[in-house]
C-alpha cells in the first residue's frame, strides 16, 4: 500500500466483513434456490422459443423465459401496479429474507436497506402505457406508470413490502450493475446498516423491448435453442436474453450472529469496477484491472482463486478479451472457468447477481456447475472451461466477472465461510 491520495495508486480501502446469509432466485431453468441449483447441476437449459409474444416477425426468437404465474405468489393489489420483472423481484426478495430468517420489521429502525441493479425499468408495463398514450390519448395512461416503469422500482417496492427503511438505491451499468449493487450493499453494511438486500432481478420480454435489445447487435439470430448462445465456442453467434436474477441478504456478521443465524453462504470478499479505455487509445481493456483490484481488495493472490464465473458475452471479440485476460492473470488453463448462464441466457441487470448466488452455492457444495452446449471450444489452450458435466472440486474462493455494453467491467470475489 502507498500513501493515500497519490495519483495512480490505490490507498487502503474500507474494511469490515459482509456476509451473505440468504439467497432468492428466479431463473429460466428453475424457481427458487433449490430448484434452480438442481436444474443447473443437471445442465438443464431454460432457453426456448419466446412464448410471451409471437417472435416470428423478429430476427431473434429465443429467450430464457421464467415460467411462473406471478399472480399466484403475490398479493393481488400489487399486480396492477407492477411490471413482471418487479413481480419476479418481489418473489426473490421474499425467498432471500425467509432463507436468512430475517424479518426487517423486527430489526431496529433504519437497520435494513435495498440496493438493486436495473437496466431498462418496467419496459413491458411501459409498452402498454405508450400504446394507450399514442392510440387513445394521454388521459388513458395508468396512474401507476410513473413508478412501475422507473429504474429503482424494485428497490422501492421491496422496501415498502418488507419495511426496509435504511438506504435504498439502484445502479445501472448494463449487465455489470449486479456486482456493483452487491458491493454498494457491502459498503452500507460496513457503514453500519445491519442488513441489506442486494442484487438484481430483471428482464423485459415484450415486442418493444425486444427490438431495443436486438439493436444491441449482440443477440443471436439462431433459432435452435441449443445452438444460440455459445460463448467461447467456434460457432459463437451472440447471446440469448433472459429474465430473472437473484437477490442476496448481505449482513454484518456480528449482527447476523445476534439474530441467531448459524448458516452463512460466504463472504463478499472483494470487488472492483473499471471502465474500458476509449477505442483507438491502444490501451488494454479494463477487465484485467478489475480482476486484479478485486483480488487485492480480497487480499488474495491469483493462485488462491479456485473457480471463475465468466461474463461469457457470446460475441467472438469479447470472448477473446475475456480469455486473454484470464490467461494473462492466472496463466493458461490455470483455473476452472464456467458459464452457467449458458442455461439461462443473459438476464440484463439480473445476470451478474445470479452468478454470485450460483458461485456461493458452488462454494457450499464443492461443485462447479457446467457450461452447456460448448461442443467446439475456441480457446481450449487458454482456458479450462468446465464442460457439460458439473465438476467436483475443493473450493474456497470464487471470482465472478461481469461486463456491460459500453465498456463496463466489474469483478467480485466470494469466499467460503471459514
Amino acid at each position: 500500500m502507498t500513501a493515500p491520495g497519490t495519483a495512480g495508486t490505490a490507498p487502503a480501502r474500507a474494511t469490515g466483513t459482509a456476509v451473505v446469509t440468504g439467497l432468492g432466485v428466479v431463473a429460466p431453468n428453475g424457481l427458487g434456490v433449490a430448484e434452480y441449483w438442481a436444474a443447473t447441476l443437471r445442465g438443464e437449459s431454460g432457453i426456448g422459443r419466446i412464448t410471451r409474444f409471437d417472435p416470428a416477425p423478429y430476427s431473434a426468437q429465443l429467450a430464457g423465459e421464467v415460467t411462473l404465474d406471478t399472480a399466484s405468489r403475490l398479493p393481488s393489489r400489487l399486480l396492477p401496479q407492477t411490471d413482471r420483472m418487479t413481480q419476479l423481484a418481489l418473489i426473490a426478495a421474499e425467498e432471500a429474507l425467509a432463507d436468512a430468517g430475517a424479518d426487517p420489521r423486527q430489526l431496529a429502525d433504519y437497520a435494513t436497506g435495498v440496493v438493486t441493479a436495473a437496466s431498462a425499468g418496467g419496459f413491458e408495463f411501459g409498452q402498454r402505457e405508450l400504446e394507450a398514450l399514442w392510440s387513445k390519448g394521454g388521459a388513458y395512461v395508468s396512474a401507476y406508470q410513473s413508478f412501475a416503469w422507473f429504474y429503482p422500482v424494485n428497490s422501492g417496492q421491496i422496501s415498502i413490502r418488507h419495511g426496509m427503511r435504511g438506504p435504498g438505491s439502484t445502479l445501472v451499468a448494463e449487465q455489470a450493475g449486479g456486482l456493483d449493487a452487491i458491493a454498494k450493499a457491502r459498503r452500507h453494511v460496513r457503514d453500519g446498516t445491519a442488513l441489506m438486500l442486494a442484487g438484481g432481478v430483471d428482464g423485459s420480454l415484450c415486442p418493444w423491448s425486444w427490438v431495443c435489445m436486438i439493436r444491441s447487435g449482440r443477440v443471436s439470430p439462431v433459432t435452435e435453442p441449443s445452438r444460440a448462445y455459445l460463448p467461447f465456442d467456434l460457432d459463437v453467434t451472440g447471446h440469448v436474453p433472459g429474465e430473472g436474477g437473484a437477490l442476496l441478504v448481505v449482513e454484518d456478521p456480528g449482527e447476523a450472529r445476534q439474530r441467531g443465524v448459524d448458516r452463512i453462504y460466504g463472504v463478499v470478499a472483494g470487488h472492483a469496477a473499471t471502465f474500458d479505455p476509449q477505442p483507438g487509445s491502444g490501451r488494454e481493456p479494463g477487465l484485467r484491472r478489475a480482476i486484479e483490484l478485486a483480488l487485492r481488495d480480497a487480499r488474495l493472490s491469483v493462485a488462491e482463486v479456485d473457480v471463475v464465473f465468466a461474463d461469457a458475452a457470446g460475441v467472438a471479440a469479447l470472448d477473446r478479451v475475456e480469455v486473454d485476460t484470464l490467461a494473462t492473470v492466472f496463466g493458461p488453463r490455470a483455473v476452472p472457468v464456467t458459464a452457467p448462464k449458458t442455461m439461462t441466457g443473459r438476464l440484463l441487470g439480473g445476470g451478474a447477481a445470479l452468478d454470485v448466488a450460483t458461485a456461493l452455492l458452488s462454494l457450499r457444495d464443492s461443485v462447479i456447475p457446467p457450461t452447456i452446449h460448448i461442443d467446439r471450444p475456441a480457446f481450449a489452450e487458454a482456458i479450462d472451461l468446465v464442460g457439460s458435466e458439473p465438476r467436483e472440486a475443493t473450493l474456497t474462493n470464487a471470482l465472478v466477472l461481469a461486463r456491460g455494453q459500453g465498456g463496463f467491467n466489474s469483478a467480485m470475489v466470494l469466499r467460503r465461510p471459514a
Partner: protein
Amino acid sequence: MLRKNEEGPRGGRRVVVTGIGVVAPGGIGTKQYWDLLTAGRTATRTITAFDATQFRSRVAAECDFNPVEAGLTQRQIRRWDRTTQFAYVAAREALVDSGIVGELHPERTGVMVGTACGMTISLDHEYAVVSDEGRIWQVDEAHAMPYLYDYFVPSSMAAEVAGLVGAEGPVGIVSTGCTSGIDVVTHAVDLIRDGEADVMIAGASDAAISPITVACFDAIKATTPRNDEPETASRPFDRTRNGFALGEGSAVFVLEEFGHARRRGAHVYAEIAGYASRCNAFSMTGLRPDGVELAAAITGALDLARVDRSEIDYINAHGSATKQNDLHETGAYKRSLGEHAYTTPVSSIKSMIGHSLGAICSLEVAASVLAIEHSVIPPTANLREPDPECDLDYVPLVAREQRTDVVLSVASGFGGFQSAIVLAGPGRWAA
C-alpha cells in the same frame, strides 16, 4: 466539524467539489444559472417541446439548449438523447471549471450519472415510429433506429461522459427517481472516500419533457394545472400551490479527494461533509405529513458531518410545490432541527426552474455550493400567500445576502426515497 488535517466521514478520505457545470432552464452554464436564481426570475412557461394541448398540465421549465451552439458534433446530436447531451455539456463545463484537464489519471478517475427518466424523449418518439403510433403491439423491427439500445439502457450516458473525461475507474448510473441527484453525488463521494478513485465526475441529467412524462404526472395530478399563469405556476410553500412544474436540465461536479485538490492548487468550492438516505417504506408516491424518514436522513447527514443543527446557515429545500410534499418537508425540518427550523432560511429553487426529476437534486446541490461561494441565498419565487401550515422562513421572492458556510440540501421522491446532504464551505473546514 472537520478541520484541515482530520480525516473525513467515517474515517475515510475527505471529498471536495472543485468544478461545476450546469445546463438549466433560463440559461446554459453556471453563471447564467446563478444569475437567474439570485434574480428570483422564473423559467417556467407553456410547453414548447411538443403540442401539449391534450394534457391537464401544460407548463414546464424548458432549457433553451442548442446542441450546435453547445459545441456538439453532428454525430453526437444525431445519436445522443437530449439527456445525454445535457450531461456531456455540463460535465465539460465542470472539467474546465476545475482546471483538472491534463491532470487526470484515467485509472483513478470515475464517472457517475444520476437520472430518473433516462432517454424518455427518444424512447417515446421511437416507440411511436415502430408501433405506427400505437396501432400495433408487435412493433416493427424494420423501423427500429440503430441507437435504440443506447436509449433502452441509460448507462450509455455514463459511458459517453466517461469517454469525454477519459475515465477508466468506476463508471455507472445511480437512479433513485427524484433523489437521484443527491444519491449519485454521495455514491461518488463514497467511492473516493474508500479509495476506489481520486476524482469522480458526478452529477445528474434529465430531459423528459415529453408526452408520456406529462401524461404520467397528469394521471396522478402531481403537476400544476396553472396553465394560464405559466410564469408563476410553481409555488412552493405557498397556500395556492397545486403541484410541481416539470423541468429539465443537468448539473455535474468534479469531486476530488481533498489532498489531491490541494496539491494541484485547485479552487475548492465546498466539502461534501455528510449525507444519509432513508426509505419511508410507506408508498411509491405518497408521503406522511410527519416526515419521519426525511428527518432521520437529515439527522444522519448532520451526524456524519459533525455539524450541530444550530450551525446550518441555509436549507436548500426539495420544495416541489405539491400539497403533501411541502407539508411533509416542513414537518421533517421541525422534527430534525427543533426550534432551529424556525430560524434557518429555507428556499426552493423549483419555484424558478421547475422539477427536473432526477437532475433537480444535482442542480440544487449546485445552487447550495454557489450559495456558499457567493454568500447569497436564492429565494423561493412566487411565494406571495404563505400557507399557515408551512410556517418557516422560506426566503420569499428576494435573494438574501448572508454569510453561508454550511448548507443542508434534501430530497424526497417516488419509491419512498429520502436523502439529505450537508455541504461545508472553506469558512468551516479551513478554520
